[in-house]
């Protein structure tokens, strides 16, 4: 894992990346230490409903009178968790499938890509409903649903870059010298796959958090009363005028988190992609 340490050191030099790493660390910290940081329990009704931000409830209260600030903090825990695990599933499976399809071409490639087409062509909402029905609602189902929806996208991206990488000279050389296939895949081809893969995973992460919001909009995502940014947002939709803070603060947190991950993705791409040094 020397490379990983090296990547972090390189990343640290880029000021933008430094901001992101600190930002993301803070958010993860808030999520983990939610019970300590949050002044109230997320589902306790502490004041009159829909009251404006004030001293003892910084982000105001929602239509039940619960403290939006505590809910946003507890929400971080859920949204981040959903985002990371879902992208993990999607990226992991997608990477492996993409590699195999891209490298072995011919029959395996066609079969795999056709299965990917099936999953990809399937309207994601319906796929989400299927999975949440089979697995029962709540956190687990949402994560798996979003994960599976992401697999084809990753597979396609990875496959495209593997095919492109195979065309390069040095990969052909490695093959011609009789290097074991797995070694070629990992050692030679994957560095080329890393750049688009990183960009794709940061995009997928933002997509995952937004999809979680859409799913709770349809009543599929996180069940009340536990909060996630997405469900808070879809619940607050109807009160946009009288209680705008119910919408503003979750949106701000969603936007910030996704921005941080995406900018980190960019800097990571610059660091990881060997050709992009200067």
């Amino acid at each position, binding site marked *: 894992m020397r490379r990983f340490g090296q990547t972090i050191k390189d990343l640290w030099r880029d000021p933008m990346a430094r901001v992101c790493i600190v930002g993301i660390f803070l958010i993860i910290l808030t999520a983990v230490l939610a019970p300590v940081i949050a002044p109230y329990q997320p589902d306790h009704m502490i004041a009159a409903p829909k009251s404006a931000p004030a001293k003892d409830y910084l982000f105001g209260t929602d239509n039940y009178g619960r403290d939006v600030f505590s809910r946003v903090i507890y929400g971080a825990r859920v949204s981040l968790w959903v985002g990371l695990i879902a992208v993990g599933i999607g990226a992991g499976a997608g990477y492996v499938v993409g590699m195999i399809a891209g490298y072995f071409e011919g029959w395996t490639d066609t079969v795999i890509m056709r299965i990917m087409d099936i999953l990809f062509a399937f309207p994601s909402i319906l796929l989400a409903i299927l999975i949440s029905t089979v697995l029962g609602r709540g956190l687990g189902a949402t994560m798996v649903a979003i994960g599976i929806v992401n697999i084809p996208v990753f597979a396609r991206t990875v496959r495209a870059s593997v095919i492109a990488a195979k065309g390069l000279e040095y990969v052909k050389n490695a093959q011609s010298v009789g290097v074991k296939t797995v070694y070629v895949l990992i050692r030679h081809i994957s560095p080329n796959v890393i750049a688009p893969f990183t960009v794709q995973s940061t995009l997928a992460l933002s997509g995952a958090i937004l999809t979680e919001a859409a799913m709770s909009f349809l009543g599929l995502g996180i069940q009340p009363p536990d909060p996630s940014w997405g469900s808070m947002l879809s619940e607050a939709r109807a009160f946009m*005028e009288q209680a705008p803070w119910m919408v503003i603060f979750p949106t701000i947190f969603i936007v910030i988190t996704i921005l941080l991950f995406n900018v980190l993705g960019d800097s990571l791409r610059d660091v990881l992609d060997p050709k992009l040094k200067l």
Partner: protein
Amino acid sequence: MKKLLSLMLAVMMIASVLAGCGKTTTTEPEASTAPEASTAPEASTAPEASTAPEASTEPEAPAEPMILRWGADSEPTGFDPHTVSEEASLRVIPQLYETLLGQDENLNYYGELAESWEVAPDGLSYTIKLREGVKFHSGNEMDAEAVKYSFERVLGRTEAGDIGAFGSKATYFGNIDTIEVVDKYTVKFNLTTVTSVFLSNLCSNYGAIVDPAVVKENGDLMRADGGTGPFKLDEWMPNNYVSVVKFEEYWDADRVKLDGITYYLVGDEAARLAALRTGEVHISTLSASNVQAAAKEENLTVASYQTSNYIAIGLNASTPALQDKNVRQAICYAIDRQNVIDIVFSGEAIPTHIIPPSTGHWSVPLEKYDLYTTNVEKAKQMMEAAGYNENNRLTLKVAAGLLDSIRQTAVVVDQQLDPIYVDFEIVNLESGEYVDVWYKMGTPEAGFDAMVVQDGSGTDPNRGIGMFFTTDGSASVFGFSNARVDELCELALATADEPTREAYYNECQDIIIDDAGKIGVASPMAYFVISKDLQGFVPTLADSSNYRDAWLEN
């Protein structure tokens, strides 16, 4: 570069060709949004023809047609008055169809398609004299034959067989024995048993008079228009708008000032509020909290009336823990109804048990029942007596969904029951699932211990109690069954004398409330947010969609 541009064009060409084909007529009806299964049809919404105040200045017909723009929150499934039950369809049906009788705001009957009616002394037959010269939208004349055909269609005695009409139940027209056509404009209904609610049922849209020719030609009235109402069906663009236009040969045509009504689907509440504010839409429904925001707008007014719907928590009789009456009563004691009303309905609703106060004298006053005065301390003792304490809490799997008010009530009540060792595990079901679970709520297969519902008890207790609490009542899903209640309901149905019916129903209410199997919470108001341009529209519990006297200022 040239190649690139041609390529882009190619892609766009294919997509637009794909979009271009399949040009079809616009009157293709569409599957609707979730059925409001639990809010059963308002038996009472029949058009009201009482003498509305004569409009002072008769507006001369402006050049442009006067079309009322309605902001609908959901999509109708179809317009067959005998079978459809969603709120979205029930807005449009009263414009297209009419019934023999109507009920005014103080629930007195008046003749609509009927000129006069008399009841035989033994109460077993009703003779109705029809209004003459009334035309269907198809141009055929409305006569006794059409009335006979309409009721036989509901009872499944026409060639179409049973069409799944609600009216065929005993609680409606089930006990009509024969229908005689005395002459072209006189119809006689012979009943098998005395039914005091027969006249009130005649006002419901299940008793709408339809044109036999149109029914035979189209099979059903989901998309075809066989009514006599002031407006006829013009165009239906699924998931977008439904438009009805003025029926020239309506029998009371000079009273109708609007040239047409178009119901636009604006699913999103914030969007509806914006459309109302900009005048893009004249009238729409909003939830309690947004109504307060709309009331502040100077070009909008709010017309509201107390509905006969009520939010309730139904407990699954087959759940072991809930078989202990003390636990059920403890839950009833612990609920703070005013708190629910303040949070979920912004204070604009009234506490209620299983028969809402808006049904007038039929509803036993809430103060009579100690169970309905919040007493958390007593509830706590009852729960402790039943063996529950801080580390042995009762967890109930609660189903919610369909309406925001249902979802929010579940969350608020869960919070209120916390001190008496009860926790809700709320699951928001999506409408199809909600309806399915609703049927099984009396059995373990439901998979839920309780369910928050919004039921409509209508204007007559025969429906409010008969349908929901008799053992084989079609809406009695929570497994409640009491022989005495069944017996009382039969007796009440059989007598026409009001005071005795009231005594019977009061006793029923005592038994049902004491059992606390279904705990009433609040009866919400219905709101219409109306643009100041719309005049002459006064919605009431009896009739909330009568636009015969309405007109638009500019």
